């Protein structure tokens, strides 16, 4: 697999999500292109690099989504002020968990079928979302720090992200079709397992 193509695709997908993606939102149901790109690569890339390439996409997603943390300010007599903080890690781990779930499914899914790719995207996004929320809850316990869903609740965030995962799966249908047209650029190696049989041994007659 060509890493340069994957990195370019991840950056374009992240930029698409951060700009034009809002048009595709219906309430909390909002599809993201980035999971589709990751799942597309996961379904065809060598298994040994699957987790790593998902982590890379998770890192990009983390870097582009700073969270707002509130801090007591010393200059304003201790009043609360808001501050942006980039936490690189929650989506890295979430995407890694999603990749660990999708990789074993490769054998079960018809890879070129958009429906099966959408199902894989749903599974990937759901697990990534659960891991993301869990990590921020743990971070909240450990550090008493801010969460991205403040002033909402963790439960509400899980529901919102479950809807988001459904949106990702819906968007994956056209996205996978488009990505499949670019398959030749990605440099995936196609390995066909040839099993010996009567026809190959010339003993059918």
């Amino acid at each position, binding site marked *: 697999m060509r890493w340069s193509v994957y990195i370019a695709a991840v950056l374009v997908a992240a930029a698409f999500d951060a700009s034009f993606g809002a048009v595709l939102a219906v309430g909390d149901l909002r599809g993201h292109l980035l999971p589709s790109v990751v799942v597309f690569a996961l379904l065809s890339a060598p298994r040994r690099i699957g987790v790593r390439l998902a982590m890379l996409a998770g890192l990009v997603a983390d870097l582009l989504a700073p969270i707002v943390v509130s801090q007591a300010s010393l200059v304003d007599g201790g009043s609360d002020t*808001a501050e942006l*903080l980039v936490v690189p890690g929650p989506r890295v781990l979430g995407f890694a968990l999603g990749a660990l779930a999708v990789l074993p499914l490769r054998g079960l899914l018809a890879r070129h079928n958009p429906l099966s790719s959408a199902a894989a995207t749903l599974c990937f996004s759901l697990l990534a979302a659960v891991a993301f929320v869990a990590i921020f809850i743990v971070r909240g316990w450990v550090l008493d720090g801010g969460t991205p869903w403040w002033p909402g609740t963790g439960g509400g965030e899980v529901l919102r992200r479950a809807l988001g995962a459904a949106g990702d799966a819906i968007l994956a249908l056209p996205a996978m079709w488009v990505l499949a047209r670019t398959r030749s650029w990605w440099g995936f190696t196609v390995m066909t397992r040839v099993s010996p049989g009567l026809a190959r041994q010339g003993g059918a007659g």
Partner: protein
Amino acid sequence: MQAPRFIRFLSGRRLDWSLALLALAASLAPVGALRPWTSDLARLVSVPLAPVSHFGVFLRARVRPEQAAFDPRAPETVALEQEVRQFRALYEQARLENERLERSITALAAVRARLDGTGQRLAEASIVGTDASRRDGAARINAGIRHGLRAGSVALVSGDILVGVVGQDLGALSASLIPATKLPSLGVRLYPPQGSDPSTPLSAYPGAMLKPTTRGTWSADVASTQPLSLGMVARLADDRFGRTALGARVGTVVAIEPIEKAPLARRVEIAPLASLGDHSTVIVVVESGAPE
């Protein structure tokens, strides 16, 4: 010989586990350990994304135009109304400033110093990226320290509506905006929709400290005997955001309910007038000495 052996050791599953542990450590690292380097890294990543996301925001504005574009009235009328709103904001700003001056002599000296040295102006900045994971997340704009932007500066839309505040992670050419609905508190005064009466003292207009709610609105307990009504306009009356931001519109009152434990106070809910995610450009306050 040492390096290749280490690289051989750190490959395959071991490399995956090491990266995962590194990510876990970064996820649970305190704010002080992350702040010095993560913002710079994020800015670095956002550089190659800028052209694509700028084009995406342009397309988004075309596909889903801002609310004003659907206004059937003549553009001249809209422009004039916007000017009226801006001047009303300036008027409220002047009144709030006046009240503050009268409050104490020490404040007067500080304000005089501020007025003398305020070399501030308003500038337009484009939104080049938003948080893809949430509608009320932070946004990135194409203005930074080189344009004279400072952390804590306010961002306005439609002339006088506060939508956000510039965050601490300022870059040379870009900056992040914290949405107003994510700020821990906002000091405002509530005015009738038609504006304040010059002959009425400012104390007749109740003040409130807004706190964000889970619905993307704010709530505040108003301990005032003054009448409250739906549709009242909340204008910023908070010195933390600078003189330029005073009087900017924040939201409108959408619900009023009594508080059982405090019969003289009422709880109001205020809905924001504009959302950062619905706009492609914002007006920010910059130092006038900086280049355009």
